[in-house]
């Protein structure tokens, strides 16, 4: 097992993938995360299987910069077979904030809308996100987390840039 510099490309790509996966699994209208930094990274090359990264990293809540959570993860990029998504196992230190209240408030708000929700460009060109659109943004992070997880390789690092269009169906 080789120790990797935590600030270098390979470690940060693997951690970004783990972050995306965690957003996919735990994201909600009130909650999502961006990678703040990698504390430790090691790489294990497994014969006939692929490269497995052992990571310790810190996530930051996208709505509250000072709210962070420590995580560990193992990310296995499969050898050769580019069609299969990497395997991710993770643990989160401590309890995640319970977001039931925010989630219910969001659900009730959408229920009470007269017309289906439809919007574009979140954030807008100047980085603005209206308070009503914050939960939509969090949901997009969760969805993007899935897409990123499914489409990443050891040599790519994806990040949600902007919601072009959202429509309630």
């Amino acid at each position: 097992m080789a120790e990797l510099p935590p600030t270098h490309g390979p470690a940060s790509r693997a951690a970004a993938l783990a972050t995306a996966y965690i957003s996919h699994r735990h994201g909600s209208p009130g909650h999502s995360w961006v990678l703040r930094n990698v504390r430790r990274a090691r790489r294990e090359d497994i014969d006939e299987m692929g490269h497995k990264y052992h990571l310790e990293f810190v996530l930051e809540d996208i709505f509250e910069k000072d709210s962070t959570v420590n995580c560990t993860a193992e990310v296995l990029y499969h050898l050769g077979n580019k069609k299969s998504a990497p395997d991710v196992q993770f643990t989160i230190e401590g309890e995640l904030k319970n977001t039931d209240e925010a989630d219910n408030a969001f659900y009730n708000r959408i229920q009470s809308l007269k017309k289906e929700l439809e919007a574009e460009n979140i954030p807008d060109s100047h980085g603005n996100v209206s308070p009503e659109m914050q939960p939509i943004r969090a949901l997009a992070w969760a969805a993007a987390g899935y897409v990123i997880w499914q489409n990443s390789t050891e040599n790519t690092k994806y990040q949600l840039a902007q919601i072009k269009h959202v429509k309630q169906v």
Partner: protein
Amino acid sequence: ILIHDVQELVDQSTPETSNQKQIPESYDYTQYHPMEEIYTWMAQIQKNNSELVTQHYLGETVENRTIYYLQISQPSDKTKKIIWMDCGIHAREWISPAFCQWFVKEILQNYESDPKIRKFLQNLDLYILPVLNIDGYIYSWETARLWRKNRSPHMNGTCYGTDLNRNFNSSWGTLGVSYNCSSEIFCGTGPESEPETRAVVQLIERKKSDILCFLTIHSYGQYILTPYGSTTEPPSNNEELMHVAQTAAAALTEKHGTSYEVGSTSLILYSNSGSSRDWAHMIGIPFSYTFELRDKGTYGFVLPADQIQPTCEETMLAVTTIIDYVDQKYFPGGALMLTSGSLGLSLCLTAVLTLIVT
């Protein structure tokens, strides 16, 4: 053509008005500005600070727009060395041109009151290019916010844009590029195929023996990146480059707690060839850095305007740290010609040292 830009000549020969350092009062440096406003701003800055600032023609974009840079230069008969800083090479990185404008404003506003600025301006001229990729920048305002490249047409106008930061002649077309126009990292049809690239190259080549520092400003990621992207082989002055960058990053963190990573592009990010920063170092400019400003992905390219001020404040400290180092390295022991009080102080110190040595 006998005179390439008559307007530029006229601008430069406009007689000095008053000695007052003026910034257009109504210009809001905490908002993003479209290109028309930046053009007006440049002309105003020169007009209001004509003893220090001159606007110069650099070249033209694909769509025939004029590229200007600002030269901040303290009048003197000394030959000065040059610090170069360019912003907006990638269209969507709006915080970058915002920083160049902020930087100019800060230098001019504090020139009278800040001895550190007057000290380095004794020996160094600042060349600031607020927006290099003008066509792309306009396109990102009007059509596609996340556009990156320039707007050169390819394949009969069915595909647009070369990545200017893959278009320089530094191991061009080898690593971290695409030969396909539809890619974000399309390196162009050849090294320096783009007029924007050639505009920079022509000036830098001409002045390279006087340029000590080449800074190119991008977003995002919060990095100060050293050469190279095209190889993991460290540059000859790697230790010094790293040390200065680390000092700059530490100064930056002091301001608002923002943390920056320092290291070579090929290790911290990924391999890429044809970058302007690699090219600058390869032709001999010792202090060549790429800055990647805020943030780390929460907003990414669409950084909210309320972060312009803190980002610019902290980045200012990093850049001036580098400029100070370069000034002290190449112009050591220069006493600042200030009031007679401090002149007296430095004379006293010298005397004490001499006695001890003998």
